[in-house]
């Protein structure tokens, strides 16, 4: 098989090719014949039998791609006691579900799960495999793609197919300042992980029906070296991707303490606290709060950007919010260009005032935390 590769731009691995002009070279590749690979397979992520949102979002997006390719949309459900989840995948848009249900699969472990995926891929021969770009999905996809082997594009925010049935997987590059479209021309399946909160799930439709095909587990318990001893659920951990209201802070906060002010506003609004990368990198707040590059892509109904200048890598992570309010000392801060409402001024004075006004409007009891405000005032200099 003869093909052309264009390089000179940075590749998926981010190998910088600075100063290198695009060049073309003929490469003769001895690749297997993948012409009978058809259909789209979504690997469904679950915990305790409950499907993750990103899996339903991928079934929604997969439905569109399947329509364009005039092919089937399939799901792979792995776990213990997950028969109902397989049915749920049908309601969420799958034509057919492959189900591997076994007691040993209660906890996710890379080897047994990836072996099942490899078995399913060898049997089903899908042309595209999509997995959520979660911690789970990135762990699993990296193993599968290497075993196959095939190309894997991480963390996609746009998916489409071209006239040659090639998956055009687009992902942010260079701290989300650019987007890159990545193709995998010679191998099948074409694999991608995709971000949560970017694609739209279909409405659940219990009238849909489809085949559920059981597949066997590939490893026995004593072949698995890894053991999950416990899962420590952290309910207080923020889930930005599912949040309807986010109050986010950035470099302008100047330290970790002012996040207490943002938390108070978030509490008054019924939202959660987010942060830009500089604030997270400085260690002012945990990575779970990060919006934008390597953090979450969010689409809340209301987003407060406080002390955030509006660097491109942050904006791409939050620009799909319905309403954006920006508060910044600098009237020229680029964040104002994407905000519906802008306030120029001192966040240390404005944020507590907004919190108070929200509480009054919502007739919520005002919780005086003046000690926090004073502490912040003392450190903000």
């Amino acid at each position, binding site marked *: 098989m003869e093909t052309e590769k264009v390089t000179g731009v940075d*590749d998926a691995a981010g190998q910088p090719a600075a100063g290198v002009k695009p060049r073309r070279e003929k490469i003769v590749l001895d690749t297997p014949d993948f012409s009978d690979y058809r259909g789209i397979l979504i690997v469904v992520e679950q915990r305790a039998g409950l499907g993750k949102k990103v899996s339903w979002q991928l079934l929604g997006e997969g439905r569109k791609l399947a329509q364009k390719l005039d092919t089937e949309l399939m799901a792979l459900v792995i776990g213990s006691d997950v028969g109902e989840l397989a049915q749920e995948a049908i309601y969420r848009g799958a034509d057919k579900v492959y189900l591997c249900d076994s007691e040993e699969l209660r906890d996710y472990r890379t080897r047994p799960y990836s072996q099942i995926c490899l078995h399913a891929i060898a049997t089903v021969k899908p042309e595209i495999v999509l997995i959520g770009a979660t911690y789970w999905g990135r762990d699993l996809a990296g193993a599968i793609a290497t075993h196959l082997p095939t190309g894997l594009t991480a963390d996609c925010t746009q998916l489409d197919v071209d006239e040659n049935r090639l998956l055009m997987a687009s992902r942010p590059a*260079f701290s989300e300042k650019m987007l890159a479209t990545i193709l995998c021309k010679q191998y099948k399946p074409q694999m991608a992980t995709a971000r949560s909160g970017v694609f739209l799930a279909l409405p659940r439709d219990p009238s849909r029906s489809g085949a559920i095909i059981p597949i066997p587990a590939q490893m026995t318990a004593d072949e698995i070296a890894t053991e999950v001893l416990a899962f420590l659920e952290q309910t207080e951990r923020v889930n930005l991707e599912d949040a309807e209201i986010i109050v986010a802070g950035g470099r302008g906060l100047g330290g970790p303490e002012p996040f207490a002010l943002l938390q108070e506003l978030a509490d008054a609004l019924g939202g959660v606290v987010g942060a830009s990368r500089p604030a997270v990198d400085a260690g002012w707040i945990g990575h779970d709060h990060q919006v934008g590059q390597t953090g979450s892509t969010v689409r809340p*109904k209301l987003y407060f950007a406080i002390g955030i200048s509006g660097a491109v890598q942050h904006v791409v992570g939050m620009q799909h919010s319905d309403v954006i309010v920006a508060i910044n000392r600098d009237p020229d801060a680029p964040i104002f260009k994407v905000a*519906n409402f802008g306030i120029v001024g001192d966040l240390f004075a404005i944020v507590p005032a907004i919190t108070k006004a929200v509480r009054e*409007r919502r007739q919520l009891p005002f919780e005086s935390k003046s000690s926090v405000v004073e502490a912040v005032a003392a450190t903000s200099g």
Partner: protein
Amino acid sequence: MHIVVCIKQVPDSREIRIDPVTNTLVRQGVPAIVNYYDLHGLEEALRFKDEMGARVTVVSMGPPSAEKALRQCISMGADEAVLVSDRGFAGADTLATSYVIAMTVQKVAAEMEPVDIVFCGKQTLDGDTGQVGPGVACRLDYEQMTYVEKVVELNEGERTVTVHRHLEDGVEVVKTKLPVLITVLTELNKPRRASLPGVLRAAKYKPIVWSTNDFPDLDRSKIGLKGSPTIVSKTWVPEPRKVNTEMIAADGVEALSAALIDKLWNTDLPTRLGWS
């Protein structure tokens, strides 16, 4: 105990700007740094060096200039550093990169001492994929522990390791057997500063450099551009959000707040959010 730490020298992507006129990347003056997630892997390895006398070898694939990054690791306390550098490796995507890194770890294991743990950063700053770690684990047939925020116990006698894996909704406590590849988060530790003896050693230190010719079993169809199934077909700068920004101005923060609240309550947000 022999620990290999994989590092990558990357442009500090936080410093890369888009030229507003030409819409292209401005790379001039962007500093090259050690991918900072990798430094947390190095720190953890150095902790085991301090606590149990582990041997720490740092490996990297990159251009000759990446020697500087490796010397930084030596100054922090790593024992040896290996740079895998050859034009033939250039243009690699994550699949081809993981092949070369895995070959390198195997060569390090064969020529120095068998390897027990490989640490990688959870992802690189420039690629942001997080795929090389799992790829290397898979090729080495090591157990794979990704997104680790704590190494709870390393049991040399039992040859097991127990870690905390970070997930969206909690922490998973996982025990596995050595050899293992662990990808790490910044929560794991605080990387140390270079010591004075470390700096003095690093100043004179020459990393071991391996080219394609140093790997007799290397399959050249699996490296560099040739070994990379993914290609970038285009790049573009995303369209910004289009919105008519309404600037709110008033005298005093109370008036400002009241004005903002009025604006927000005039949208459909209160209904959609079920605000009282």
